[in-house]
């Protein structure tokens, strides 16, 4: 009986035996998630280039705008890729330019003026933002898109034509547990 009790005591004492672990590893941990997020989209047809009297307008009556307030970049790697894809079935080429503003509606930067040709195949324009450009991009709170038709045949009311645009933001999200 004495042996059994001694054995049991040893077993219970050994409960405290935790070896080969290091909790401090958690403190320096960092986890990365690759994300490509469809951020914005625009789908319009020929009617959007006509006024109420079916007269052609060079631009939509107002710039298209998206309000990006509420987006946070604190957990993102210090570079990101902003790509915009266009496709068009218009029989006329379209110029497109994006303008980026901060929260005070101060213009931060403009994109190149993209030429979207009258072909039914998508075209992608991408820009990598890093360093100072990254800091600039992360302060963007509003994007305007302006479209203009290049010279060509007078357009007619038609729902079957389509111009579409999708902006995708590619980045790595970083999680650094704070203990």
């Amino acid at each position, binding site marked *: *009986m004495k042996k*059994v*009790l001694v*054995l*049991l005591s040893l*077993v*219970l004492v*050994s*409960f405290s*035996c*935790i*070896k*080969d*672990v*290091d*909790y*401090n*590893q*958690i*403190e*320096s*941990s*960092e*986890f990365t*998630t*690759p*994300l*490509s*997020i*469809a*951020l*914005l*989209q*625009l*789908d319009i047809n020929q009617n959007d280039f006509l006024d109420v009297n079916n007269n052609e307008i060079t631009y939509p009556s*107002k710039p*298209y*705008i*998206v*309000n*990006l*307030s*509420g*987006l946070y970049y604190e957990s993102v790697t210090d570079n990101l890729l902003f790509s915009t*894809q266009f*496709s068009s079935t218009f029989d006329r080429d379209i110029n497109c330019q994006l303008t980026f503003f901060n929260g005070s509606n101060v213009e931060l930067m403009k994109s190149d003026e993209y030429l979207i040709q009258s072909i039914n195949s*998508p075209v*992608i324009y991408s820009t990598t933002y890093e360093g100072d450009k990254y800091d600039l991009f992360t302060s963007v709170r509003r994007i305007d*898109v302006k479209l203009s038709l290049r010279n060509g045949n007078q357009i007619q009311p038609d729902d079957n034509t389509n111009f579409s645009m*999708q*902006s*995708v933001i590619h980045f790595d*999200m970083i999680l650094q547990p*704070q*203990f």
Partner: protein
Amino acid sequence: MKKLVGLLLFFNVFVVLAQGGINSYNFGQTPQAAMLNPAYNIETNYHFTLPIIGSHNIILESTGMTAYDVIGTNSIPFQDKVENTVYQLVANDYFLLNQKMEFLNMGQRLNNDAYLSYGFYEELDLFSTLPVELFHLFYEGTSIPGKEYKIDDVVMQSNLLMVYHVGLQKSITKKLDLGIRFKVYNAAYDLQATSNKGNFNSNITADNIYSHSLSDIDITIRTSGFAVQYDADNDPIKDQNGDIILENNSGDDLYFEDYFKGGYIANKTFFNGNKGVGIDLGLTYQMKENLVLAASINDLGAIFNNNQVRTYAYKGDYTSQGLAFEYDSPIGYVQRLEDELNEYIPLTIEGNNYTSLRPFHVNAFAAYSFNKKRSNVCELYKSVSYSYASIFGALIHAQNRPNQILYDASFFYERNFNDIVQARLNYTVNKYSASNVGLAVSAHLWKINLFAGVNNVLGLTNLAKANNISAQLGIHVMIK
């Protein structure tokens, strides 16, 4: 916080109480054994367990990983260890915490030779599957177009309750003992998220258009014992300090912090919780003088939640190819996204009553005794097993949990050293582990019974590398 995480990882492998007491089933004439099998004859005329310190059980288990897998000291970077661990998990891997503390356990033999036992104990239960596919989503993000990340196997249930019980063990014939135990549950809180469906995927079309979809979302979470009050917009009602006000039967304002004040939670746990009923059934059959069969079912019951109840449900589908440009919208991007999600996958909050089933246990037991008879044969009762020096046996145990049954099989060798000490050595195998060797000892010293057991002796050499460890402790006064 670091210590908390470390503690959780530590407990992750620290103590597993043998999923219902493999060590103590029909062993040692202890009241703990009788709680597992109400037909078990503890061969005494009176007993009581020392309140609070007398009997503690704790189960803490997580399948698919050990603490060493995550925080072990080796040359593998921490991030890689975590990632490797995540990808070794499989569906239905789970985390289980079950803790019990007895406040009162007493019993006495009646004139008709039946044994009446009664008491009450506190039980905290938490069961959660590990959201494996959501872990994968965290690592993979949107890098695998078309891959669906399901939430179907995400399950959680938890409650804190007081169990009031009264049981009766009776010898029906010389071979057959039956036992029954009635239970009344008083649940301080209850949480059930047991039937979730839906998936998330990101896709790229042939035209290179990105889309993100939440499909077939059907999530239901039920709670009782604490209930946030909401306005018509499903926003929590707050007081002038911005603190969320909870529903309170007395009409006074109630806050989350009130739950952490001893008096309130104690009152809810002991008396003013949601009520339920349950039953334990057991039988012991002395097939031969040296062959005993036993079986029992425990906690076959339910809690009827009708006080401070809430049901939160999300249902719907949502696909986004990005938010549409608008003309000078004053609404922010995140707010628009939330608005769209709320429109397509709305949250509904109701206060309907609901019933939560208890996770019941089923045990099947057999024991074969051999070696010469000891002198301490108890003529009054017929537990002749103890007149043998050695016993071989087996126990099969199953426990129902949402979407799965947890089961294990244990094989043991038991030795009666003398009138005082019995020891059991058992080997347990289950779906997740095949290396559990346990040891239990029961000692009767004067009128005191001491019981202690561990279920994975090998794991004790380094808890960090053990998948599960179990421990039990009991101190009882037994008067014959």
